[in-house]
């Protein structure tokens, strides 16, 4: 049910002002980005600078997101409809998804700065590209999986009623994929904040933004600015939630493949507001509908002259072959170069990499263990007690919404004041970045244990440790594994920024592959940087295959609670 357009002009006035503000913002950003590059950018700590910094951070996120969306749709579409491409595109996606993106941060930044010498644009694009790499894969996979799961009869209906390409895309594929895309977008953007903060704080390539503001505040030991920065961060995230995600989720409700209307649909006051706006209604009627009509006619004309497409297909095939050949030769060339660089490394450097890998591996797993140790009892308690959940869950969500990288400088400051090196400090940092994944999954798992199973356990007098062993742990197992997989990926990522830090003009570091990557960047030792990055990616992908993938399969088969 659509709310009737209201008679008052208030919504329209607001929409118009928003448009003006947007235009002003674009002009300002353009001036900054096309301006000269500042290697050591001065970060102002004044309150007035905060909204501007928040705006810059937001803009980077938005740009990277739009880029990701287009890429994800294209990639998913090709993979779903070209079986030959699918065969390598999906395994590739799998590998790309499990590589820790932050390990590329130094390399990407150096490359982009070299590509646009003397311009701020290069570093800005570097940050956008990095965030893009962090968020695109799960979106692409979600779109691909949605396309693959369009019911057969729906596809057949489209064929028998001669839907053209455009109609299929707009009326079947896109709607069908919307819900998955929305949820994955939310996850991706949450992750994007994490990467963005790391980018903004990164050594010589610092960018004006919330991340660098917080870093500067911590550097100066300025508690007031630290608090203001964190409050702004939370405010921005809450606003995005209210003005973007909630309306989109409420709107996407109509794309649910349900047979019966669900009782409680998500609502959003912003969406209601937009639906009430006369301006929006007018825009739909005057601009969107005629445009749609034009598209329909354009594509249905193509429908009649279908016979010619056979010839196009052969040229298309050749294009694909040429593209494949180019890609293959590029890959081949890179592999040769990499091998040449790697063979140039000394034995001592290889030894160093091995030690670093082992230290970080240990650190990551200790973190996971510690994370699981506190989140399992707490998560189960929250999941089992709805009243506790009502208080604890929103709190945890807000705490989790603050990207760990944003508060790194602050935590680092505290850790160093307390004494004790980064060796243990980095574990705290890793924990900060990854524990939430486990906690939320454990809560979800505890909530998913059916009441009748809990009742059966209490009827048969199963309590204490026995209750944990027979009921709770098996019940949350699939969720725990999912949380641990995500957390493990996150922890490897965080290690890049957690093991090596600039603070108050000093460098703090500990033994680890993350420290090596960051250190190699600072020392401009590209060969070591490349070798460490590759080694890290290889270890992570291998662990995923050997350990997590197997646990996940076990969770899927033996411990799945089927309705």
């Amino acid at each position: 049910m659509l709310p009737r357009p209201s008679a008052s002009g208030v919504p329209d006035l607001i929409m118009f002002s928003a448009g003006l503000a947007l235009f002003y913002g674009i002009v300002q950003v353009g001036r900054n980005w096309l301006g000269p590059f500042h290697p050591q950018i001065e970060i102002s700590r004044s309150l007035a600078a905060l909204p501007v910094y928040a705006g810059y951070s937001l803009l980077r996120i938005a740009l990277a997101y739009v880029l990701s969306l287009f890429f994800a749709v294209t990639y998913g579409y090709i993979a779903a409809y070209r079986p030959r491409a699918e065969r390598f595109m999906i395994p590739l996606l799998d590998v790309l998804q499990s590589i820790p993106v932050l390990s590329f941060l130094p390399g990407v930044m150096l490359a982009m700065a070299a590509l646009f010498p003397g311009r701020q644009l290069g570093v800005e694009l570097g940050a956008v590209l990095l965030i893009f790499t962090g968020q695109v894969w799960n979106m692409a996979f979600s779109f691909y999986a949605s396309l693959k799961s369009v019911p057969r009869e729906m596809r057949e209906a489209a064929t028998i009623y001669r839907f053209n390409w455009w109609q299929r895309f707009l009326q079947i594929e896109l709607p069908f994929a919307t819900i998955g895309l929305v949820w994955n977008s939310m996850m991706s953007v949450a992750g994007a904040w994490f990467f963005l903060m790391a980018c903004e704080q990164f050594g010589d390539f610092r960018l004006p933004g919330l991340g660098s503001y917080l870093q500067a505040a911590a550097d100066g030991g300025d508690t007031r600015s630290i608090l203001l920065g964190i409050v702004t961060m939370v405010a921005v995230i809450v606003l995005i939630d209210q003005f973007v995600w909630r309306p989109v989720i409420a709107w996407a409700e109509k794309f649910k493949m349900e047979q019966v209307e669900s009782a409680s649909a998500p609502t959003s006051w912003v969406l209601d507001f937009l639906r009430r706006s006369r301006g929006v209604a007018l825009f739909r009627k005057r601009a969107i509908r005629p445009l749609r009509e034009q598209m329909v006619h354009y594509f249905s004309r193509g429908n009649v002259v279908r016979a010619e497409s056979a010839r196009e297909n052969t040229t298309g095939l050749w294009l694909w072959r040429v593209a494949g050949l180019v890609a293959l030769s590029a890959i081949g060339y890179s592999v040769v170069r990499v091998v040449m660089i790697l063979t140039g490394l000394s034995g001592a450097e290889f030894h160093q990499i091995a030690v670093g890998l082992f230290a970080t591996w240990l650190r990551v797993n200790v973190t996971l263990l510690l994370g699981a140790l506190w989140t399992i009892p707490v998560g189960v308690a929250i999941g089992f007690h709805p009243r506790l959940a009502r208080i604890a869950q929103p709190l945890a969500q807000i705490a989790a919404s603050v990207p760990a990288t944003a508060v790194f400088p602050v935590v680092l400051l505290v850790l160093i004041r307390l004494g004790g090196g980064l060796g243990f400090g980095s574990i705290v940092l890793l924990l900060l970045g990854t524990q939430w994944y486990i906690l939320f999954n454990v809560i979800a798992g505890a909530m998913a244990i059916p009441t009748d199973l809990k009742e059966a356990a209490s009827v048969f007098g199963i309590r204490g440790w026995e209750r944990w062993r027979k009921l709770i742990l098996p019940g949350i197992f699939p969720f725990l594994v999912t949380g641990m997989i995500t957390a493990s990926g996150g922890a490897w990522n965080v290690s890049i920024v957690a093991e090596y830090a600039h603070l108050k003009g000093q460098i703090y570091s500990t033994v680890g592959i993350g420290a090596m990557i960051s250190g190699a960047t600072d020392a401009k030792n590209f060969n070591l940087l490349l070798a460490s990055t590759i080694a890290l990616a290889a270890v992570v992908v291998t662990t995923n295959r050997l350990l997590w993938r197997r646990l996940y399969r076990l969770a899927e088969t033996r411990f799945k609670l089927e309705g």
Partner: protein
Amino acid sequence: MTELVEPIIRAQAVEKFYVQPDGNRIEVIAPVDLNVEPGKIIALLGPSGCGKSTLLRILTGLSKPSSGEVLWHGKPLTSQNAGVAIVFQSFALFPWLTVLDNVEAPLEARGVAALERHKRALRILDTVGLDGFESAYPKELSGGMKQRVGFARALVVEPEVLFMDEPFSALDVLTAENLRNELLELWISKKMPTSAIFIVTHNIEEAVLLADRVIVLARNPAWVRADFPIELPHPRDRKSPRFIELVDYIYKIMTQPQLAAAVPDATAAVQKPVRQKYQMIPHARVGGIAGLLELLLDRGGKEYLHRLSEVLIMDAEDLLPIIEASVLLGFATLKEGDVQITEEGARFAEADILARKILFRQAALNHVVILQQIDSILHAKTDHSISEEFFYDILDEHFSADEVERQFDTAMNWGRYAEIFDFDRESHRLILAEPVGEPHPPTTSVQP
């Protein structure tokens, strides 16, 4: 049949098979000739999984036959030149479009202008009784209403042949009956812009109620077992002797593969001898078989097929596999549409839980080829276990992928019940269930 009228669709020796990697062919549809003539409702009947939906998809141009050809008014059929529409079992409506948008979508694809589109869609919605629901979304509608939208969407393109793929089987009994009658009314009063209807169904009564011509398919692979006209005037009376006679007749041909009985007072076209094939297990659970045998025993050991279907409120699709399984196991016999319990069957029905397992085990090892194979291999191997892959390989050579899955599931259900083997889900292996060293094959017979 005399061919006075030119058929709209003419399928000539269409065949569907899948070629295995080893070059082996799995035949799904044996070469079939089939015409769709104007002015008729044609019903295609067959047991589940027999390939009738595949045949429908070939006739509409959705799917290409592996060999043979389909002609549309004498020209090769493509999905672009066919004047056809399909009403789907699952409705296949777009949940994010309103009723009106759903009906307009096919016109949009044909490039019909907005105003004209709107007018035509409204007119057809009016015809199927969906006045006032234009702006509703499908999920707000009941099943019957949804299928009306399905009809409207099909009719709005004015198809020359309207195809229906089990259009009423997702609906409850009363709604289905109501919708069937309305369809007939539209058809008889010529309010439909359609010159032929082709309906795929597994419901025998539905076929006899609607069709001017019934085609019965046999399975594995599909071939036309019978093709005969029904000349009863509409509306048809389910209680009339002729109606019951026809229903009984179809039951008979569907249950007896070898039967070549003539239609009473009509010419039957029965082709092809039954080929020698790998034994196919009917998809019935042990519980279903036991239930049927108990019921039979209760009713004096013998009952008419269609009477059984009435008592159990099951249609042929669900009932036939259970009966076929009982016959295969030697628990019952089928003659002329009568199901008769055997001595073994009666013993099984009366036995207690443990004795039943033993009786079932004997019957299974005596009659079911795949279980015999599993049993002998498990005894022959030193570790008394074997990967499930082995049996997939055997089945793959004879059945399509879906059928393999169903065959395996049923064999698992029977074999585990009979304690011939155990199945380890994690290693995907079958393991001998009994203590090692028992004589093979087991011949101990326990009287209940």
